[in-house]
């Protein structure tokens, strides 16, 4: 069974003549464990699509199923809980909490859920992300690449089935970009997670299992690139 099913999603901003159709009847599905890249011009609707999948925004019409659950049928509170347990987010601007240390930032979604972190898993993540020696540092004491690794750690701490990354390397230099990307792929494989990642970088897109292109709100499946 597919982990993610997107069915006839439309998103329109405004009305009448000024209406902007950000997404036009978008449908696709992604099986568990697949690494998908979403490409497209600026303003094509990529981020809107990702926000819909992550239930951060509501579509004008259509449905999204994650693990068979209709996310838009859920009440706000249930949706928040569902999101923090099942979806990991990675943003271009990292969005770490400046007052929390590396370790605290990583376990933040668990703390919100009143759960204790699994120490072994946390140590493993810190090791995989190369942050063991930085665990007590504040975000302001880290480089951009390190901050993005913390954000990846935060996205993975709840062992979500789906990881959504909006240009995770957009703020990084090429060295850091390839490191972060390699990490993301490694962890996704290691923890059997589905990753949907927006990128502008064709080189990065080519390493994905499948590439989806969004152009003027219309989605085209470009298929696998690696083969």
């Amino acid at each position, binding site marked *: 069974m597919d982990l993610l099913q997107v069915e006839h999603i439309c998103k329109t901003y405004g009305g009448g003549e000024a209406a902007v159709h950000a997404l036009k009847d978008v449908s696709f599905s992604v099986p568990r464990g697949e690494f998908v890249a979403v490409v497209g011009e600026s303003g094509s609707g990529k981020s809107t699509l990702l926000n819909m999948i992550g239930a951060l925004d509501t579509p004008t019409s259509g449905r999204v199923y994650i693990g068979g659950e209709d996310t838009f049928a859920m009440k706000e509170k249930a949706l928040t*809980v569902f999101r923090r347990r099942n979806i990991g987010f990675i943003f271009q*601007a990292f969005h770490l909490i400046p007052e*929390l240390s590396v370790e*605290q930032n990583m376990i933040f979604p668990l703390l*919100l859920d009143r759960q204790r972190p699994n120490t072994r898993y946390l140590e493993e993540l810190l090791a995989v992300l190369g942050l063991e020696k930085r665990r007590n540092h504040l975000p302001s004491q880290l480089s951009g690449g390190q901050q993005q690794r913390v954000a990846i750690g935060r996205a993975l701490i709840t062992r979500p089935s789906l990881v959504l990354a909006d240009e995770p390397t957009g703020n990084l230099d090429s060295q850091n970009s390839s490191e972060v990307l390699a990490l993301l792929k490694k962890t996704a494989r290691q923890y059997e997670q589905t990753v949907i990642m927006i990128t502008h970088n064709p080189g990065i897109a080519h390493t994905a299992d499948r590439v989806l292109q969004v152009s003027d709100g219309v989605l085209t499946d470009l298929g696998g690139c690696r083969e």
Partner: protein
Amino acid sequence: MKSYLSLIPISAKVRRRQNRMTLLCIIFAVFLVSAIFSMADMAVRMEQSRLAKKHGQAFTLQAIMDTSMGQSLFLIAGALFLLILIAGVLMISGSINSTVAQRTKFFGMMRCIGMSRQQLARFVRLEALNWCKTAIPIGIILGTVSSWTLCAILRFVVQEEFTAIPLFGVSAIGVVSGIVMGIVTVLIAAWMPARQAAKVSPIAAVSGNTGSTDRTQRAVRTGALPIELSLGTHHAVSAKKNLVLMTGSFALSIILFLTFSVLLDWVGYLLPQSASDADITIYGESGMNCVSPQIAKAIRAIDGVENVFGRRSVFEVPAELGQEGLPQTVDLISFDDFDLNALKKDDVLKKGSDLSKVYGDNSYVLAICDPDAPLHKGDIIWVNGEALNVAGLLKYDLFSGDGFSHGKVSVITSDETFLRLTGIGDYSLVMVQGDLTDESAAAISDLLDEGLLFRDQRGQRTFGTYIAFVLCVYSFLAIIAMVTVLNIMNSISMSVSARGKQYGAMRAVGMDGRQVTQMIAAEAVTYALAGGVIGCTGGLAIGKILFNILIRDHFAYAVWTIPVFRLLIVVLFVASATFAAIHAPAKRIRDMAVTDTINEL
């Protein structure tokens, strides 16, 4: 655009919503000062016309200022000016601080494209002064209109000595002090933020470092509290300047409240208001019990008379008090039911007194004695071979000028008990209360036999002045409270706006609406607790000092006690201010689209 400064009104238009609270703060400060000085001016004009009428010559302002009334009026107005200035600076600098902190990137960009440090500082100062353009006129108009309203209340509702107060006077002093207050507050308040803005490095525009993250030195302690509460508390404690401003404004208004309340006590001692204050008093020339109850009965039938009550008295009755050092005689005074009720209303009974036992024919009495030779509740006083049980004590001597009994012991009995003990039926004093016209007073006077004296005290009641003073103090306190609530709401709202992006990210990674509210509440409660503790401690200390200077030194029987009721009001006020401050920003963050905040760089 003629100059870079032309950007100021454009920016003001764009940031209208964010600037609304700052504008309100300036309007309040200007309004308060112009209302206070306008009122002081009107009072002086009233005094001028009163003196002119009395002495038949015009009095200059200087002449009024030389009187103690004029001096104290302007001294009070000056002290209030200073207090409002401090409160205004605290509030407005908080607002300007936040707007500057939120626009670090903008200032960095300005520096990038060539604005000098001085130009940036001038920009921030002029931007603040630009608010005065609208805030000062509004504040002055509000101040003048409210001084008219207050004058009308004094003239038509309170009346008494205020019937000569001018109604629609525009006070030049009020207008000028309002303008000065507006400009001075804003300039002082903008001074620090302007320097801060000038310090912004051009790199802030390109790096996106807004400074707030760099200042974080230590990670939040988690574990003891849920994460959202730890974060909220940390938000309050980590920004030291904001903590001082917020705690300061909470504490200042509590201190003002507790201090001003002492002024109310002071007026209570200066102009004691008793439920048994008489408009007309009738007594015998000889000072003996010689007013017959029939006269009292006849007075009751006269138009306008509301209450008639009498007292009987016998002085230096031999008595046994059972304690060494106490006198061997007592003064016996009878109070009828109305008079006894008045004791309770006036709150002159010491704690533990049981007034209910005294009514009717029995052996219970109330006693007045010196604090150094005290009687206690339950003590027995033997009079005419009869044991009188002390059911309660009075806080001070009602019958002496200074509140001390000077070694005498007075015993208050009910009418019935007095009659049984002494057999005396006539009154030594009959008092009349009511809305009495000259005709009614004359009718009462006509009833009196020879040997009885009539004292007309209708014009001497100080109720009007007392009420006017209480009204002024309470309205000032209400305004201070309102300004504090507004300021706290504004500051919390600003603090939340400044962290909008962070809160958006927290919501994206799973913080629910309740947790957002709790995080903001934890921040507000931290300010409230710190401000409450400092305010109550400071307010009680200052209040006690003021009590000693104003009251204790002049009314030695006065005892300072912890004002529990007022502290309860403070707690209620702090709790409701905190609730009001949390509600709107928490709702804003809950309703905010997560995508709006996380997608912007």
